[in-house]
Structure formats: structure tokens, C-alpha cells
């Protein structure tokens, strides 16, 4: 039996040092530690006030089991809970994902494929119809995840928990998951911001959970009002199951599409946090913001998003690894960062696992010499590799991308094309409309080369999906039995240290095979008003979790 549950201020690495026995003692002992601020922020939390945020897009709808859109998951993070969550607060290092119980008091793994979760007692649904504040039970959790796995239009989310075979509720406060095969990432996947626990009564009353009226959760705030394309307002849940939390009486998300207007409103004090996704501001705007807002709180962090190049591995010239290496070597990731308004040169190169996921992304200096070499822009060497592969006068290939990711992305595309050209890779750029790109190129329907963005998910294991045969997102067409075995092996390895070694080995191996060429991720600047306390930015969509432990000191 392996005690997997853990709580408190400790990171996963700290816990590994202390050993599993200590972790077992720690479990449940620090239920309220999530509210404890770091020393820098140490002061008495204040109740009251309303957090004001900006979102540039409106939610697609409010049903978490019918979309993967961040614009839906962010608002839901204020109103719903899940079994486990990523710890929040100013002491949490951005890019780390320490897991703690949310609805779960504790959990344990029995054998390789069974997980048993004990729920907190006395958790009540929001006092709104049709659930009207009744107590949450194991049946609710069972219902949620069965719906999650069986809703037809949840294909995209389903992959998160597709290893689940059976869910049982043996008693009112116990939920048992049986997996089809061992998967060491199961609990991390349950911390995804797609796994909100929903109420059966809401689904039955409204048919689905798309309407704002159907948003009845157990989270720290209750959805009070949704005005399409205007605002989403939340009010404090007085019966929230963590005593004393949240501190703020409300949250207001203003839906404002224009980035300039959003930044202007931030400067004018209309928002408490940076106006862009992740509560950040562009680094190019940082000086202006600091000049206008005295004592502005800021913190740099690497985002999970980053560009990558997919190449058709079953077609010439990309069958030849030397050509793929030439592509990687002609990518000047430093220039990509320097020309980006978010980063102005600040950021990090990515191996397979984005550098943002600090615990699982291998540092570039730990790659083998051949892999490391490919991260140094060297058009001369790239030309030599192409010549060695039988292309002395370079290659000409069609490249597909979309302008739908915005002007910053197109700047990066221009840099990539320019540098490829200097290495003898002449590209014939084909810009696709965003919708067409998503429904064709991303699914591998492109001619030889594609430039695109990845990121958003904070679970390292999901990044292996594009390397497995038969997966829709395997756009390069990777079919490498050795790699597939390594990916499956790390999923079966529960010892975190050993698993990390395998994950690092996979990245070492991939750095030389270059099935995809990964570019850099920018270092963004999260910003917040000086009166916002105990706020810690992080990757992922869990705004609610982060703001629950923060307060306004006005």
C-alpha cells in the first residue's frame, strides 16, 4: 500500500527527501496550510472586497465535460471543486504543481490499479436550486467521472482519465477508482482543471451544464451573474468547506476583447491583475506599468506555451534524421525570444516537456552532446548536415501554420523562416485560417511541415501523446517502438525519482531523433496591484485556487 496523499507547504521534492512515512503523517495535518502566506506576505489576512480580472474571451459555455476551452475552465475554477488540486499561494514556485486535497481528505493506492479517496465530511453544494445546499457524497463524485468518461462531446477531455475502468462509491465518503492499467500520473491528472465535480440535479434539470444557471458547485465562490460578452460575477460561498476561506467577497471577470483597452484599464486601476492570460502583462509594457502603478507586484515565470515544428516522418526529406537535425539547428530560439514583446529575450528553450514544468523538463545542459548541439543556432553546420543527407543545394518544403495565434506568433514564424533560409531550408509558407488549421493540420493533415503552438496542459504525461502511434495529435506520424515502450514504462513507474529518470531519458533520446523540433517558451511577467496579498502566479487555469488564498489589503 502506498500512501500517495499529501498536504501542506511541502513540495513533492521535499516530500521525497522526507520519505513516505513522513508524508503519511503529514497527510491531513495541514488542511489549512494552503491559506498560509509566505514570510514576505506574512500579515493578518483581510476579509472583503472584490477581485477584478480581465478575460479576453467569453466562455464557450459552462459545461466542463463538453469543452477543453480555458475560457470555460477559468470561471469554473471559482465555483467548482475537484478531488485534488494544485497548491496555491505566494510560497508556491511557478511551474511546480504540488498537489493537495480539495474534496479529498486523503487518498491511497491499493496495488497498481486501484485508488481509494476519502472525502471530506460536511462539504455542501452551493445553496442554489436545484441542489440547494445538500451535502456532497461519494455518489456525486462517481456520477461526475462517469459523465466525464461517457459524454459524447467530451472526446478532448476524456483522454485525461481514459485509463479509468471503473468507479465505485462503497460508502458515503469513499470513492474507488479502478484503472485498466497502472498509471502513475493518475492523481496528477485528477488535479486537471477539467475534472470539476458537478451535481447530478443540475444536469437533470438543465439537460447539460452549458447554461450559467446550471453552475452549482462546491467551490469558494458562487456564480451570481453572467452577462454575455460583458462580465461574470461571483459572490462568496458562505458555506465553503475550508473555514475562513475565501477572503474576498466576490470576483468580477470583465470580458474585454481588445488588448490595448485591457492594458489601459489596468493602468487606470480597473483591474487588480495583469490583463492578459495568466494575469501577465507584456514585458514591453512593464516599465510603463511600473511607472504608473507604484509598488506593482510582479513575478517572472516561464509559460507552458511554445512553438514547435512537426515534420512528416514518412516523407522525404524528413525520413532522414540529419535533415531533421538541420531544422532544429537552424532554429534560433534566442532570436525568437528577443523579438517577442512578452519576453524581450527572457525565456527558455524547450525539450519535449516544456521548460515551464520545472520538475519534469530536462535541463538542456543534461542532454547528450548531440542533442545539446541542436539547441545552438548554427546555419553552417545545418547546411553541412543537409549536404551529407544528399541536399547540397538545400531543400524547399511547404510549411503550414495559422495567423490565428495572433501577431506575436507570426513574428516568431517570420524569424523561423528567415533562419531556416540561412541554413538552406527554403519554405513555401501556407497560412491557414485558424478553424481550418485546427481541424486539419493539427491532426496531421498537412504536407510535410507544420509550425504550431503547444501548451496549456500542466500534466507532463500529456506531452507524450503526440509521440504515440494512433493518437490524433501525433501529427509527425511518430511510430518508434522503443519510445512507445519507454513512455509506457514511465507510466507504470510509481517511484517518482525513477520515473523522472525515465522521463529524462525519453527527452535525451528525443533530443537526438528530432521527431518534432521544439522552440522556446517566453518568460512572462505576472503583475498585480500592491494591495493584493498572498498571490502567487502559476501555470494552468486554476485562477480560483490562487485567488481563494489571496486577499485585498486596501
Amino acid at each position, binding site marked *: 500500500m502506498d500512501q500517495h496523499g499529501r498536504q501542506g507547504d511541502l513540495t513533492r521534492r521535499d516530500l521525497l527527501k522526507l520519505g513516505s512515512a513522513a508524508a503519511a503523517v503529514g497527510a491531513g495535518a495541514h488542511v489549512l496550510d494552503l491559506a498560509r502566506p509566505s514570510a514576505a506576505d506574512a500579515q493578518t489576512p483581510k476579509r472583503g472586497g472584490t477581485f477584478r480580472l480581465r478575460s479576453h474571451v467569453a466562455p464557450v459555455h459552462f459545461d466542463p465535460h463538453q469543452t477543453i476551452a480555458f475560457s470555460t475552465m477559468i470561471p469554473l475554477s471559482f465555483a467548482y471543486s475537484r478531488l485534488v488540486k494544485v497548491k496555491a499561494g505566494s510560497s508556491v514556485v511557478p511551474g511546480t504543481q504540488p498537489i493537495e486535497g480539495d474534496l479529498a481528505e486523503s487518498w491511497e493506492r491499493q496495488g497498481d490499479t486501484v485508488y481509494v479517496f476519502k472525502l471530506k465530511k460536511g462539504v455542501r453544494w452551493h445553496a442554489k436550486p436545484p441542489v440547494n445546499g445538500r451535502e456532497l457524497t461519494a455518489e456525486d463524485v462517481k456520477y461526475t467521472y462517469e459523465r466525464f468518461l461517457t459524454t459524447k*462531446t467530451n472526446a478532448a477531455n476524456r483522454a485525461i482519465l481514459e485509463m479509468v475502468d471503473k468507479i465505485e462509491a462503497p460508502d458515503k465518503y469513499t470513492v474507488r477508482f479502478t484503472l485498466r492499467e497502472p498509471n502513475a500520473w493518475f492523481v496528477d491528472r485528477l488535479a486537471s482543471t477539467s475534472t470539476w465535480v458537478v451535481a447530478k440535479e443540475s444536469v437533470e434539470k438543465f439537460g447539460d451544464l452549458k447554461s450559467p444557471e446550471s453552475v452549482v458547485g462546491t467551490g469558494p465562490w458562487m456564480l451570481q451573474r453572467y452577462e454575455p460578452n460583458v462580465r461574470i460575477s461571483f459572490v462568496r460561498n458562505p458555506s465553503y468547506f475550508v473555514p475562513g476561506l475565501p477572503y474576498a467577497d466576490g470576483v468580477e471577470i470583465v470580458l474585454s476583447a481588445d488588448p490595448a483597452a485591457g492594458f489601459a484599464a489596468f493602468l487606470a486601476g480597473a483591474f487588480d491583475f495583469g490583463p492578459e492570460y495568466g494575469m501577465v502583462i507584456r514585458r514591453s509594457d512593464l516599465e510603463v506599468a511600473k511607472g504608473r502603478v507604484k509598488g506593482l507586484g510582479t513575478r517572472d515565470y516561464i509559460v507552458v506555451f511554445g512553438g514547435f515544428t512537426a515534420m512528416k516522418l514518412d516523407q522525404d526529406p524528413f525520413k532522414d534524421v540529419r535533415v531533421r537535425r538541420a531544422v532544429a539547428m537552424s532554429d534560433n530560439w534566442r532570436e525568437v525570444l528577443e523579438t517577442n514583446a512578452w519576453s524581450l529575450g527572457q525565456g527558455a528553450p524547450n525539450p519535449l516537456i516544456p521548460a515551464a514544468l520545472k520538475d519534469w523538463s530536462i535541463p538542456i545542459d543534461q542532454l547528450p552532446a548531440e542533442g545539446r548541439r541542436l539547441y545552438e543556432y548554427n546555419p553552417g553546420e545545418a547546411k553541412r548536415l543537409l549536404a551529407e543527407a544528399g541536399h547540397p543545394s538545400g531543400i524547399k518544403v511547404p510549411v503550414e501554420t495559422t495567423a490565428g495565434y495572433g501577431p506575436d506568433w507570426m513574428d516568431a514564424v517570420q524569424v523561423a523562416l528567415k533562419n531556416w533560409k540561412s541554413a538552406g531550408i527554403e519554405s513555401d509558407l501556407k497560412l491557414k485560417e485558424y478553424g481550418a488549421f485546427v481541424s486539419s493540420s493539427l491532426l496531421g493533415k498537412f504536407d510535410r511541415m507544420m509550425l504550431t503552438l503547444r501548451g496549456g496542459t500542466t500534466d507532463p504525461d500529456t506531452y507524450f501523446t503526440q509521440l504515440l502511434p494512433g493518437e490524433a495529435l501525433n501529427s509527425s506520424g511518430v511510430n518508434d517502438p522503443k519510445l512507445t515502450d519507454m513512455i509506457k514504462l514511465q507510466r507504470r513507474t510509481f517511484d517518482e525519482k525513477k520515473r523522472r529518470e525515465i522521463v529524462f531519458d525519453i527527452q535525451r533520446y528525443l533530443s537526438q531523433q528530432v521527431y518534432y523540433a521544439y522552440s522556446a517558451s517566453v518568460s512572462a511577467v505576472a503583475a498585480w496591484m500592491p494591495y493584493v496579498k498572498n498571490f502567487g502566479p502559476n501555470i494552468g487555469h486554476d485562477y480560483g485556487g490562487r485567488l481563494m488564498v489571496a486577499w485585498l489589503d486596501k
Partner: protein
Amino acid sequence: MKKYVLRRILVAIPSLLIASVIVFSLPRLLPGDVVQLMLEEKAYGKDLEELREKLGLNRPIYIQYWEWLGRVARGDLGESLWTRRPVVEELLRRLPVSMELGLLALFFAIVIALPIGVLAAVRQDSASDFIARSLAILGLSVPGFWIATLVVLLPAIWWGWSPPIQFTEFSKDKWAHISQFLLPAFILGIASAAAIMRLTRAMLLEVLRQDYVRTAWAKGLREAVVVSKHSLKNAIIPVVTVLGIQIAQILGGTVIFEQIFGLPGMGRFLFDAINQRDYPVIQGVNLIIVSVVVGMNLLVDAMYAFLDPRIRY
């Protein structure tokens, strides 16, 4: 007059029918599959087919069109493919915002253009004429969204002030509601004002050279009477035609201005719908826009008959 207006209405019906075919078929020619978008990147084939059937998108396009037209005739524009809410309900909430912005922009365009155009014509080749023409060229050549971005951003950087980007309903705060429209409507009206002002000036100059105006001067009438009573009414007829065209332009402009100023009108609704390939919404919004443009042109035609008694088609 009644017969004339009735004829114009009859002519408008085939226009609307042709527009309805275009409005229905064009969104479907856009690359990208709404079903694939709805299921996002990881959809499975079986799910795609089931959803396509559920949404009625698996049937031949002409059958879909015929059914849609039948529903439109009954005042039903269908449901959003994403939210399953009736399009009419969504439009009724948003249409007043766009109309308010559009009408206010038109008001500003007229209020700015007519006096300046008249002044520029009456004081031809003077300093005021030169300034008015220069401003008109500037208004025509500088994109409205660029002016809007500067107007939003610069005061925030200099003084920490920005126009409100949170929409306030009229019932909650009348002044806040009206004031949030003033700036976008003014900027939106500038480009139209420039075009109207230039045309007013040119038309008035032409009329002022007519014999009957010279006669009016010879009779010793005051300048105000010669210009406003004898010249302007004749000069304004082509301007009224341009106003009809400007209404279409202003409606198009609301798409961007609603984005910048956070106004929840039809433009923003249309923008989101295009991104999501929400066919019923795209069709519904475009049909409303086409109807408004056709309706306004009908109104312009009617005004023609009022302004110029010679017009009898």
C-alpha cells in the same frame, strides 16, 4: 408617394431573398468544420458523425436552406450550435447596443459634416475651407480603430484614465450608459463625417453657381436664407444617398469598435460566431445587418421623394 414607397418595398423583397442565399451559403464555404471545432483536436470519428447528425449538418445544403428560410419567415433564426440558445433571443439583447452605437455615430457624422461642409463651400478657398478639407482627408485616411486605440491607451499612460470598458445598462445608470457610447460613436462617426462633409461641400458649390441662386442673391436675400433655404435642400439630395451607404459602413465598423470599447453588441457576437463557425448566429446577424441596410436604403429612397418632388418612378 405611397405607390412609390410600395414599389420600393416590393423591389426590396427579391434583394432580401438573394441576400438570404448568400448569407446562408457563404459561412459554409469558410474553411474549417464546426463539428471538428466543437469536439476540438482529439475527437473520434464516431463522435463527429453523431454530432453532425444531431446538429442537422449531415443533410444536403439546399434542404438545410429551405428549412432555415421557413423558420426565418416565422421569425425563428434557429439556435446557436454552441450554446443552444435561440439566436433571436441573443440578437434582441445585442441589437439595441449596436443600433445605439450606429445611430449615435451617424448623428455625430451629420452634426460634424453638414455645418463644416456648408462653411467650406460658402467660404471657398479661405483658411477655414483649407482646414476643413485637410481634416476631411485626415478623417478619411486614418483608420478609425487606430484613433480608437490611441484614445484608449494614451490617457491611461499619461494620466491613469481610460474610458470605461465595462458595459453599463441604461436601467442601472443612465449617464454611465450614454457616456460609454460617446467616445466610440464620435470616432466611428469621424470617417463618415469626412466623406459626407466633402460631398456636401462639392454639391453645395455646384448649386451655389446655379442661375436661380444668383437670382436669389440679386433679390438681396441674406446669405443664411440663400444657403439654407434655396441651396442646401437641392445640394443635400446626393448627400442623402451617401448617408445610406455610410450606414452600411458604420454597421461594419461596429464590429471592431465593440471589441475595443467592450460593448456587447451584434458586431462582437458576429466576431465570436465566425471564429466558432456558429452558422445560425452568423446567418442571423448577417440577415439582420442586410435587413437594416435594405431598410435604411428604403428610407433613403422615401426621403428622396420627399426632398425632390420630381422623383416619381
